[in-house]
C-alpha cells in the first residue's frame, strides 16, 4: 500500500487546491465539480485515519449533494458555463485579508498549543463503536438529527413551492 504520509499529503494538497479552484474557475459547473473533488479528497483523508465507514459515507453523500447543487447552479446562475466573462465578486481584497488573518491565527494556535497525548487505543472496528454509541449514550444526538431533517424537509418544501403557507391563496 502507498505509505500513509504520502497519501495524506497528496489528498491534503488535492483538497485545498479543489477548494481554491471553486472560487477561481469561471464555469459554474467546473466550480461544483472542483468542490466535489475537494470533498472526495477529504473522504480519502478519513480513510487514511482508519475511519472506513465515515470516509465512504462522505464520498457517497457528497457526490449526491454536489449534483443537486450543480442542477440548482445551472437553474439559477445567469452564466453557468462561464462562456461570458463576468465577475460576481464584491470586496475581494477585504475577504482575502480576513480569511488570511483567520488562517494565520488558527495555524499559530495549532502549532503553539501542547495537544494532549492519545488516551486509549482505537477499537478494532470503529464502525461498530460508532453504531453502539449512537444507539446507546448518544441516542439524543440521533433523535436531534432526525428531528432536524424532518423540520428541514417541511421547511424547504414550503419555501420552494409556489403555494407558500396558505394554500392556493395567491
Amino acid at each position, binding site marked *: 500500500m502507498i505509505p500513509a504520509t504520502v497519501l495524506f499529503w497528496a489528498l491534503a494538497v488535492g483538497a485545498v487546491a479543489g477548494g481554491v479552484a471553486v472560487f477561481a474557475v469561471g464555469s459554474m459547473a467546473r466550480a*461544483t465539480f472542483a468542490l466535489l473533488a475537494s470533498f472526495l479528497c477529504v473522504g480519502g483523508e478519513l480513510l487514511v485515519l482508519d475511519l472506513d465507514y465515515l470516509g465512504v459515507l462522505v464520498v457517497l453523500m457528497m457526490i449526491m449533494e454536489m449534483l443537486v447543487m450543480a442542477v440548482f447552479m445551472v437553474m439559477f446562475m445567469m452564466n453557468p458555463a462561464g462562456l461570458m466573462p463576468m465577475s460576481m465578486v464584491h470586496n475581494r481584497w477585504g475577504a482575502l485579508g480576513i480569511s488570511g488573518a483567520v488562517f494565520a491565527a488558527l495555524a499559530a494556535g495549532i502549532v503553539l498549543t501542547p495537544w494532549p497525548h492519545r488516551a*486509549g487505543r482505537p477499537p478494532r472496528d470503529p464502525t461498530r463503536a460508532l453504531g453502539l454509541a449512537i444507539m446507546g449514550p448518544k441516542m439524543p444526538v440521533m433523535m436531534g438529527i432526525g428531528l432536524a431533517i424532518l423540520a428541514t424537509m417541511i421547511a424547504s418544501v414550503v419555501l420552494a413551492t409556489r403555494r407558500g403557507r396558505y394554500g392556493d391563496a395567491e
Partner: protein
Amino acid sequence: MTLETFLLLAAALFAVGLFGALSQQSVVMVMMGLELMVNGIVVAGAAFWHYVAPGAADGQVLVLVAVSVMALEMAVGFAVVTALFRARDADTTDEAGDLRG
C-alpha cells in the same frame, strides 16, 4: 502526518471556505463556501478522534453531525434561493440585504 498537520489542513479548508463565503455575490456560491468550512470541521473532528480520544466514539459522532449539517444547510439554502428567485428574480446577496442594520 501528525495531529498538527491534519489541523493545518482543516484550518486551510476553513479559511478558503471563509474567503469564498465573504467574497462571492451569488448565494449558491456562498453556500459552497459554507460547505467548505464545515468540511474543515469534519477533518478536524476525525483528526481529534484518531489522535486524542480513539477510545470513545465522540469524534465519530461529531463527524456524523457535521455531515448531516452540511446536507441540511444545503437543502434549506436552496429552498431560500428558490423563494428569493421567485420573489425578486435575482439570486445575488446584494439584492437580498433588506435586514441589513
